[in-house]
């Protein structure tokens, strides 16, 4: 692995880790969504970096990243719709207030 690829992987691992950290620390539903988006984009960086450094003559990774971006947008739309419904019922988007069911 070249040094450039290593640097990109370091960035993506950091982003992924920050996403997980955010999932544990954030108590706000929108904050949680942002954390998930960080994790998705970390994967997107990986796809682009691998494509650029390992298979520069192919475009698989780039296509994958475009799909990831599109799906992330769809996911955010759906999630925010559900967050609206949550707010209407609970008057709050704090996850600690939205906790009645017991697994």
């Amino acid at each position, binding site marked *: *692995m070249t040094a450039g690829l290593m640097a990109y992987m370091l960035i*993506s691992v950091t982003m*992924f880790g920050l*996403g997980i950290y955010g*999932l544990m620390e954030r108590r706000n*539903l929108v904050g*949680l*969504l942002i954390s*998930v988006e960080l*994790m*998705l984009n*970390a*994967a*997107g960086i*990986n*796809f682009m970096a*691998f494509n650029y450094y*390992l*298979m520069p003559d*192919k475009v*698989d*990774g780039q*296509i*994958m990243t475009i*799909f*990831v971006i599109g*799906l992330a947008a*769809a*996911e955010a739309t*759906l*999630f925010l719709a*559900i*967050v609206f*419904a*949550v707010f209407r*019922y*609970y008057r709050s988007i704090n996850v600690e207030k*939205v*906790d*009645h*069911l*017991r*697994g």
Partner: protein
Amino acid sequence: MIDVLLPEVSALTGLLILFFLSLSDNLSDALARRVTLIWSLVTVVCSFIALDQTGLLFSESYRIDSYSQLFKLIIAVGLFFNALLGWPLRSIPEEQRTEYYLFFFSAGLGMMLLASVFNFLVLYLAMELVAYSVYAMVGMRRDRTESIESAVKYFLVGAVSSAVGLYGLSLIYGAAQGLTFGALVEALRQGTVEPRLLIPGVVMVFSSFLFKLAAFPFHVWAPDAYDGAASPVAMFLASVSKLAGIAALFRIVYLLHPFLPRLETALGVIAILTMSYGNFVAFRQKSAKRLFAYSSIAQAGYILLGMIGFAASSPQAVMFYSIVYLLMNLVLFLVTLALEESRADPEISSFAGLYKRNALLAFSLMVSLFSLAGVPPLSGFFGKWLLFSSAAEQGHIWLVVLAILNSVISLYYYLFVVKAAYFGDPDKKYSPLPSTFTARSAAFVLSVAIAMLGLFPRPLFDFLTSLNLAQALAP
């Protein structure tokens, strides 16, 4: 070309029809239901016609073989029964019922794609197509505040699991230097794979799959989602949605196992933990839907155990049990839906005296519960026997012993429901439980099928053997 993709095209057409129907405001939900019913029947016919197709399409990204086509047929039949029995969608507001059927078809399309995936991009897209549709379906219920909570929890856990899975896919992409399964297998065969990328990648992708199957330790969402969602949606989750996950997971496991020897042990241990967890926690449940959620967690454990027997018999075993699993769960939820006539989210005590109130439903419930527990003459027994013997052939004797102990334990809580239905006293003001003709005939057909597949498993088993599934799954 079109006849190769007949089942998918049919599901896509259903999706488009429902989309245009849902655009009109003054449409009765009964019409949407009728269209869904007819179109899911068309999809069953299309899947049946396309049963013997083969091919590798879209630059080796999409594989049509006997395995995928049979799973598509099973999924199509499952969709048909879901459309048939789900009605009326009691706890979903009337104006959203057309949209329910829209998501019904989009999830169905995603599940059919999952049976054929041969590329990580297609895998990700198909999984998300199913997942987004199901998130919306779970969130549709409006008669209970907890429902929106279960939707948001399900969505969050699901989104995190698919983000983890996607990160795993990106690592596998780097390791295999390509997105198709063929490229991965080729790279593994030549030994050019970087294990520091591949192993974390595979672990992450599998954890995402285990989430979809509600396997231990990623099962926590299932009881809440089943409980909070409207019962037809819970039926959808428990029957077809889980089978689609199994279809894709088994294909990947089958491709990777020659190169990753530890995969077998890891999946075996997860299978045992999954079934033990499901069975032990099921004891404490009072709500029927929660009980069925834990029971379906345990059933996923049995199927996982059957997957690791890579003997030639393993694909038949998984396929046979998938069929039986679908039938059994449809009956469970059919009875639950009938009980919802008087009370949403029935408890196990609501089953009391079911025999006196509606003998046919009580009988089909008993057949399906005994079959889930694996009582001999029923098909659940034969299915489990196939799963366990294929794992035993591979030398996992201890895992099989633990699995048999598990299925003995599970008999206890299944019997608890049967006892309530047959010997429990209904409320003082009990009345005969009305059931529609559809529900009665479906209950009859399904329970006869469960019994017949147990008494005479030979024809189906021979049919599955003749399909040469192991060859279809091989790279």
